[in-house]
């Protein structure tokens, strides 16, 4: 039996050339492909625009050593959407940029992207870990269009910048942005923790109901609908800061500070908080 027909648990999918239209990779999870042969994987149908084509039309598929449920994508996948969508276990590694809906609705497992992601990354993510070395587009960690709840669990790490509406309607989980964040950061936040190390855009915390925003770098001026509370928050701050310190960089030394705390958005429920440690 040739290697191409031998069942495997891990695969490398190398994109030969950028597709002419958007390519939908939703459902292409390590769990779904485990136990198949590279030839079987190459026959998987993918939506390309409004037609389905075999995966092998775009990707070279090879088996990887090891039985761990793993998928490695290689190439410029900026037109490939839905990578890791609804992921419920296993690991996906993307060596390059990816399109929209990266890790949308994922419940468990791990996704690592060495490049940048498009819009709606980690939207409605419920568990697992998503690590993007580059930037993410608008509406990351938010809700799918028309839905009421955004990210609801897990850990999202953005090592570059984030677009607008990061964490819109987010209700649980932790999201870190090592770089800057766009306008309407944490808008309509229901709960969860967002930590940002760079500059933030306009209307930060707009309509924030609960949840925590931590500013590890530049300290923005809270808007008039956020008010200071004078009490000692050192206990919860230490718990949060120690947790974030594991991610290093600008978050490594947060615990030594004593943050100022503002609550708002008073125009909404007013139980959200900004922690400004510098």
């Amino acid at each position: 039996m040739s290697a191409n027909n031998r069942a495997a648990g891990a695969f490398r999918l190398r994109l030969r050339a950028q597709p002419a239209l958007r390519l939908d990779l939703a459902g292409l999870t390590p769990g779904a492909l485990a136990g198949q042969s590279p030839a079987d994987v190459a026959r998987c149908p993918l939506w390309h625009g409004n037609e389905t084509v075999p995966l092998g039309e775009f990707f070279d598929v090879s088996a990887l050593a090891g039985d761990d449920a793993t998928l490695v994508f290689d190439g410029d996948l900026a037109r490939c959407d839905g990578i890791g969508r609804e992921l419920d276990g296993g690991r996906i590694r993307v060596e390059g940029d990816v399109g929209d809906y990266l890790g949308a609705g994922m419940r468990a497992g791990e996704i690592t992207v060495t490049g940048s992601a498009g819009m709606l990354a980690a939207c409605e993510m419920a568990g697992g870990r998503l690590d993007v070395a580059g930037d993410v587009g608008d509406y990351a960690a938010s809700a799918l269009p028309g839905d009421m709840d955004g990210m609801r669990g897990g850990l999202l790490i953005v090592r570059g910048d984030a677009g607008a509406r990061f964490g819109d309607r987010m209700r649980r989980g932790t999201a870190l942005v090592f770089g800057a964040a766009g306008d309407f950061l944490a808008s309509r936040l229901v709960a969860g923790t967002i930590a940002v190390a760079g500059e933030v855009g306009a209307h930060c915390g707009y309509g924030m109901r609960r949840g925590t925003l931590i500013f590890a770098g530049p300290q923005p001026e809270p808007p008039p609908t956020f008010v200071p509370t004078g009490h000692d928050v050192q206990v919860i701050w230490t718990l949060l800061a120690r947790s974030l310190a594991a991610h290093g960089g600008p978050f490594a030394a947060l615990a030594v500070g004593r943050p100022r705390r503002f609550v708002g958005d008073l125009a909404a429920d007013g139980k959200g908080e900004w922690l400004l440690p510098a």
Partner: protein
Amino acid sequence: MSAATIVEINGITVDDTFAEAFPMKATRVVVTAHDATWANHAAVAMTGFATSVIACGCEAGIERVLGADETPDGRPGVAVLLFSMSGKELAKQLERRVGQCVLTCPTTAIYAGLDADAAADRAALGKNLRFFGDGWQISKMIDGRRYWRVPVMDGEFVVEETTPVVKAVGGGNLLILARDTEAALGAAEAAVAAMRALPNVILPFPGGVVRSGSKIGSKYASLPASSNDAFCPALTPLAKRTELTPEIGCVMEIVIDGLTDGDVAAAMRVGMEVILERGAAAGVRRISAGNYGGKLGPYLYRLHALLGRSEA
């Protein structure tokens, strides 16, 4: 005394008998505060009136003092162990004691102190106490653990939502039979100091020592337990059955609760070694243990075996 094998060390006889212990449910919580004094105030209060499950609902004690580098929030703390006869009773006692003794104590926070898998039984810690916040309480999930932040007059009370409950062992014991009160207390205090240095155990009675050892039952039908007359020096010449001889003027008991069988055994061994090390010159004549003929519990700690003198 019914000694089949005589073991005598430094002039002290170790009875050929066993301590009998029984299964309990237990948890560990970590109380922290602004400084060690306030952490201790809270821990002392929450472990008060927790000497025996006979009438206290639980047995509790300070396991050890924690440095700021050992606690989740970087403040000084105290590790507290609580034991009860059922998970339900443990949960009830925990909620009352945390609610009345830790929530009320300035600057404190309280966390689960046991590592357990997700499937482990858990008791509420802040899960219900959060309602003291009257709607202003805030939940925070950090690394998969949920904390509640309840606004109080000194700031906010941070409490972890639940704490794991594990199977444990209660009722390990040693009986110190001595010449007089001074000798019995001296031996008990030395043993308690050494036993309290061990992890995973508490000695729930005042100062770690109990002078009113009990037997199961009573001539009075309403009492579940009564004085252990076989070890009361006042009854040596009177009781139908006595374990004492005339030269024994005072008996003290050390009761041990531990998270595991091995923890109780280790504490009993250390306690005996300390007493034996001091020798008969310090006034101790015998070491014995309380048992109920194997009727009370499945854990039997044979004194000779603990000292490595068992022929079995």
